[in-house]
């Protein structure tokens, strides 16, 4: 029947056009090489048998079909600094786990892209003084297919735990995708926390809005606390129209001063004070990659 043949040819034409457009779109969207987000992190280092850092992760975007994974990272400016790097980590253990199945899917897929996590842990024989205040930026990334790339990952600032920092224990963070991160700190000595303008400005640099125990930091008065008490700091990051800014990954620490029971003024370091992890989606990743000039 001629009508059916017309329909058949019409279907073949439409599908052929869609396949051609599909190939074109995929070739256009494909990345030549992985794109690392810009990171802006404060990373704490501490001394044990060697010098270690609190594990942290770097993130990058790659094609969803990319089966490579990161197996090593070196910072050319600091060749003596050794990092364990892997994408193969069982997050539930909160540490490195090398026995994951080989074909485990890495990262989270958004259309033709995946956002991958590279878990890093510093293990160095250098003295802690040699590492303190180092800023890591340019890095050489090694992949499982023997390829490598040199990339600017942003700024990773190493800092050592100051003695005064021992006044805080058990920082606990609960982040969400709507830009809100609440971090709870427990103190182990009696103190009075006060938030003057200088401290407010330092905290304000971290996020658009900061709440201390649920009260805006600019309205927070002196908080008297006893050893064992907790207080929470909530950072609220608002989305902007600038995708480059929204997708910058940040984790800060901030110093505030407190008055101890004996009247002396000390500094208190608020660790893990961070902006929320951005909520990724394919269109925003496309906008981000376009803005970075990667497409």
């Amino acid at each position, binding site marked *: 029947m001629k009508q*059916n043949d017309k329909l058949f040819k019409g*279907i073949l034409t439409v*599908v052929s056009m869609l396949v051609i457009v599909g190939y074109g779109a*995929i*070739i256009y969207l494909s990345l030549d090489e992985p794109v690392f987000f810009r990171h802006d992190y404060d990373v704490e280092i501490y001394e044990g048998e060697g010098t270690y850092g609190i594990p942290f992760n770097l993130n990058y975007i790659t094609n969803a079909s990319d089966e490579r994974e990161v197996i090593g990272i070196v910072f050319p400016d600091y060749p003596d600094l050794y990092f364990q790097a892997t994408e193969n980590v069982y997050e539930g253990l909160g540490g490195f786990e090398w026995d994951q199945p080989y074909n485990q899917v890495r990262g989270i897929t958004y259309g033709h892209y995946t956002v991958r996590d590279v878990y890093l842990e510093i293990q160095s024989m250098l003295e802690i003084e040699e590492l303190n205040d180092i800023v890591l930026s340019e890095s050489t990334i090694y992949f499982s297919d023997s390829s490598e790339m040199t990339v600017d990952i942003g700024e990773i600032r190493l800092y050592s735990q100051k003695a005064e920092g021992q006044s805080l224990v058990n920082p606990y963070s609960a982040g969400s995708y709507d830009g809100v991160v609440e971090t709870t700190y427990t103190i182990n000595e009696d103190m009075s926390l006060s938030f003057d303008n200088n401290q407010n400005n330092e905290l304000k640099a971290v996020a658009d809005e900061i709440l201390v125990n649920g009260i805006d930091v600019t309205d927070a008065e002196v908080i008297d606390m006893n050893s064992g008490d907790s207080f929470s700091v909530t950072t609220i990051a608002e989305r902007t129209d600038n995708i480059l800014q929204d997708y910058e990954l940040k984790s800060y620490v901030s110093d505030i001063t407190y008055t101890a029971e004996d009247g002396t003024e000390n500094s208190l370091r608020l660790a893990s004070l961070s902006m929320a992890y951005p909520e990724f989606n394919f269109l925003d990743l496309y906008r981000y990659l376009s803005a970075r000039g990667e497409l």
Partner: protein
Amino acid sequence: MESAYKKIFWGLIIATFSITLGVVTIFPTFVGWLVVLSGVSDLEDQFSDKQFSTVYLSVGALVLLSLAEGFVSISRLPDWVPALPFLFFPVFLSVIELTAFHKILEASADRLRENNHFTSSTVYNRKDKVYLVLMGCSLVLLTAALTANHETLLFFGRILTLIPRVYLLTIMHALSEENLDERLEESVPLEG
């Protein structure tokens, strides 16, 4: 001729629902297409129609491609083979399938018409049209889903490809019960 349609029906059943026992696939997809090819071969002898060379080639291609697909699923694509050209592989398979079965349905309806089964001929022409529409929709959705690499769309795309396949099974079953070669003398032609 009825046995040829029966072969095609059972071949389609095997190709659609690869039968497995535990982890071992007893009847992989290409075996199903081989059975379909055998049925098509029987039909080709009886139809001696030019269209059937297209059908025979199409089903032959489905045998080879599903065999290759089976090997790749076991051993993975070698690293030196780029994955991009194979992205729309399921679409290519479906287009070949559409070509083969549209031609079979068209030739079957023509044969019914030649033998004065005008009502049945019209019915199968209509079924061919429904099959084309169903396959067309599933192909468009599958192509869009593969382009967007969208999991939900892909899920529905794959589900939608099952609908024309099941519809085709009912048509092949019905054809296997028709006596296409019985010539009716006093049928009245119907418009269609």
